[in-house]
């Protein structure tokens, strides 16, 4: 009945984290009464649950997630959208224009193949295919900016507690940043320098997400970048 590591220790798949009765949280599994890690990450012991904060993990879609994707195909009444899931997401016409599908609609005028969209996952169907919607504020086709990628499991660090990290990046770089839970990040600044600064800061989050004190280090890094610019 004991924890075999300390919280925030780096663990590897197969590492036994706990022997005895405890709930298995994210990225852990139970075998023969022991709880082991399933992914590389930082172990976290709570009172009644043990989990691993994954350092490497793909995107597992959940209802309510904001994602950024690319239209790859247009079919009858729906668009197929690549959001880095193993199954392409579906956007049905009623979830794009708030009106029933009508075969006279020229769908390419709403979204064409190769377009980038910011969307919300509103449902997962029986095959766990993500169903998207672009109805709502700040959703829909993206016409400006560019995309970069972050390991999806590090997105919570980029957002920070109640958005503290992303707000700091927004304020200090002057860029508009939209974060998709699927690890795609849309950046749009008024100048190229602003955008390059945002890219550098986000790369720092990618590389150092596992080290505590990230917020203050990013803050310091932003200050240095700003000074370099002057």
């Amino acid at each position, binding site marked *: 009945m004991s924890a075999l590591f300390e919280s925030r220790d780096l663990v590897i798949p197969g590492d036994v984290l706990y022997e005895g009765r405890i709930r298995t949280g994210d990225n852990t599994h139970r*075998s023969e009464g022991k709880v082991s890690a*399933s*992914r*590389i990450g930082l172990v976290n012991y709570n009172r009644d649950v043990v989990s691993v904060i994954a350092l490497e993990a793909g995107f597992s879609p959940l209802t309510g997630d904001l994602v950024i994707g690319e239209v790859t195909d247009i079919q009858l009444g729906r668009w197929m959208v690549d959001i880095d899931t193993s199954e392409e997401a579906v956007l049905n016409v009623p979830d794009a224009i708030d009106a029933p599908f009508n075969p006279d609609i020229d769908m390419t005028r709403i979204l064409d193949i190769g377009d980038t969209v910011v969307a919300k996952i509103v449902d997962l169907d029986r095959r766990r295919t993500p169903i998207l919607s672009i109805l709502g504020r700040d959703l829909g086709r993206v016409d400006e900016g560019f995309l970069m990628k972050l390991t999806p499991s590090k997105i919570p660090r980029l957002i920070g507690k109640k958005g503290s990290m992303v707000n700091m990046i927004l304020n200090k770089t002057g860029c508009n940043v939209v974060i998709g839970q699927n690890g795609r990040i849309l950046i749009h600044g008024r100048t190229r320098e602003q955008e390059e600064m945002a890219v550098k800061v986000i790369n720092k989050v990618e590389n150092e997400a596992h080290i505590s004190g990230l917020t203050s280090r990013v803050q310091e890094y932003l200050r240095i970048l700003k000074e370099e610019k002057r």
Partner: protein
Amino acid sequence: MSKAKITTKKKTTTKKTKEKTRFDGRKANELRPLKIESSVLPNADGSAYIEMGRNKILVGVFGPREMHPRRFAKPNEATLRCRYHMSPFSVDPRRSPAPSRRDTEIGMVMNWAIEPAVFLEKYPRSVIDVYAEVLEADGGTRTACINAATVALVDAGIPMRDLVSSCAAGVIDGQIVLDLGDYEDKEGEADVPVAYLPKLGKITLLQMDGILPIKVFTDCVDLAIDGCLQINEIQREALKKKYGISEEAEE
């Protein structure tokens, strides 16, 4: 380590009792120099580079991603698809870049070696591609590929039950030896590649070519498992190295 010594002492069934040094100067229970590095390919979801003796191998993992053609997808789990391929200049004389029957078979046994460690059921209908590219071959490529593929899978964030570690043992001049190099592989009486899940205690790759009494064969397996445990430590270090700064910074 201690287990290996016992194993080699046990070889009373074989003719020679005095341990000979091997042609490359290694002891019977000694691995070749081994180096593993993770996250080496910028475009793969996970990757690893391994040097095991003079073997030089890169492994890239892609996925879970959509299976094409779709009818090959399994409705209840992901498909693990290992591909083993050798560069034309990896051996002497040059080989054709077209895949051989041997390549196909090795891809298959890699699959079987690794599958039991992967939570495939978490990704129904998708495929996880594991591509091993042998840049230079020096005997025991399949075991080296499995070691690197495991590190690459963890690096890709694929959920795993355990690390798979793999190593061969064999018999040369009546002596049981660990981790055969190309020369030994060709000259020796037998070669037994093994893959092992240390935490689960399961053998997931087992092949043998040669003629051996049962006792000698099982001694080979024991020695190979001992090699796997040593390799397991090196795999763990390789995975942790990427985050090496953390442990110091945490203090």
